[in-house]
């Protein structure tokens, strides 16, 4: 009969799991069938999708959940308000709330039109008098990532470089946790965070009216162009209005991303971005994968050369439809 084990005599266990890159290749096999680049058509990507099962967070001025255009798609009870406490520290309160301006409702309306069965949550990061602080934006974004939202739309940003690193770390966290983060590009060639980071998908305007007619831009940090000019948007107090800006292009692409993800929920953020690339109008019009890369690049550069380089948008080239 063996002696009972004495404390400290057990076989040594690894302190931490082995890192992913040492795993057996069998555990890295992907679910489902193989997909080639040529399979990545709009039909494959979002055909028949409605956004069902997707949770989308909109970090903005709030959302007017009762707006008729939104048809009850907003999870009012899940919504949070982020504010600054008396000690200057941000805090999060889960509570139903309205829209202080109308912009968040506009973003929600754009996403709902595209992905009608997705559930939308408001993360209100603007305070009374529409005051905004980078630390409040950051806290709102951190909350949405922590909650594991599938798609997060952030049409706001900060130009403050001292907030660059916190936003960088948070966006990387979103990327690895699987939240797809869509941001509006800055109109000017100046830093705006987090729209500059590779872990997010930054969007500016094209001239199309069709949200499914979005474009890949081969000159980052703005990687996609989507409709954002004279867009009919839902607004505060049950109204609608016509609006223009990159901040309306972002939810348009977020809506497409929501559709794709609802049909292919296992896609990682970089794979989702690849599907967006493959289904972009200017990429689909090219005949081969290599050709698509080359011709999309050439077409966009040609447009850029012909335009006035007054902004980031012009510098990367707007594509006329």
């Amino acid at each position, binding site marked *: 009969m063996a002696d009972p084990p004495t404390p400290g005599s057990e076989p040594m266990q690894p302190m931490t799991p082995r890192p992913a890159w040492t795993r057996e290749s069998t555990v890295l096999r992907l679910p489902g069938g193989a997909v080639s680049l040529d399979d990545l058509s709009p039909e494959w990507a979002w055909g028949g999708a409605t956004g069902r099962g997707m949770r989308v967070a909109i970090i903005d*001025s709030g959302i007017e959940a009762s707006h008729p255009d939104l048809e009850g798609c907003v999870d009012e009870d899940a919504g949070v308000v982020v504010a600054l406490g008396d000690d200057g520290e941000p805090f999060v309160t889960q509570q139903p709330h309205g829209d202080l301006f109308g*912009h968040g409702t506009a973003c929600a309306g754009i996403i709902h039109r595209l992905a009608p069965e997705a559930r939308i949550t408001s993360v209100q990061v*603007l305070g009374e008098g529409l*005051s905004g602080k980078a630390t409040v934006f950051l806290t709102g974004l951190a909350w949405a990532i922590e909650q594991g939202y599938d798609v997060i739309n952030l049409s706001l940003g900060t130009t403050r470089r001292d907030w660059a690193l916190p936003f960088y770390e948070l966006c990387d966290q979103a990327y690895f946790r699987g939240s797809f983060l869509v941001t509006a590009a*800055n109109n000017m060639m100046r830093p705006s965070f987090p729209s500059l980071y590779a872990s997010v998908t930054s969007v500016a305007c094209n001239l199309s009216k069709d949200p499914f007619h979005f474009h890949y831009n081969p000159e980052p940090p703005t990687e996609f162009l989507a409709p954002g000019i004279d867009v009919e948007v839902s607004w*505060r*107090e049950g*109204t609608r209005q016509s609006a223009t*800006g990159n901040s309306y292009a972002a939810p348009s692409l977020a809506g497409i991303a929501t559709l794709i993800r609802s049909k292919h929920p296992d896609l990682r953020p970089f794979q989702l971005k690849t599907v967006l690339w493959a289904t972009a109008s200017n990429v689909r019009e090219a005949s081969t994968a290599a050709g698509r890369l080359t011709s999309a690049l050439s077409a966009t550069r040609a447009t850029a050369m012909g335009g006035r380089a007054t*902004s980031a948008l012009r510098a990367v080239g707007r594509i006329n439809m």
Partner: protein
Amino acid sequence: MNVVLQSIVTSAGSVAGATQGWVLAPRPDGLEVVAAVGAGELIGRPVPTEGSTAAYVLAAGQPVAMVPRPDDPATGAGVASLLGLRPGSVLCVPCVHDDEVLGVLELVDKVGGGPFSFDDVELVTVLAGIAGAALQAGGDDVAVPTPDHLATDLRRLAGADPTTYATVARAVEALLARG
């Protein structure tokens, strides 16, 4: 009056074809008009922020161009509330310099009707960048005070040093009363 900001807002209004426009700078209790075209009487006036496009742009750092519905309560917010105006079109862009949003440049009512175009957004954004530099230089501090502010300051000085300022204060108030 800050001539640089005044020139910028005049140029912006001209290139974008706006009827009126202003530059607003943040103050501890809201916003203040620091330059204006077509509404010069507003310079130095505090601006209510609730629901206003200018306050949103200041916070979000993103330009906004829109054609508000006349029945939208927000249409008459901000500077429009001081003028009793319900603009048919609005273009508002942030004045950024050295990583900070230091104010906003807002234009209203495109001449001939219709919305401000994306070209307008881009051109005015460039001009707003110059306004940002001017705001950072502290230029808005030299804005001419309103008559009310001037009279208040003179009364305060007259109370503190009646020998020097009382006569001046009475004379200025008499002038102000005459309009």
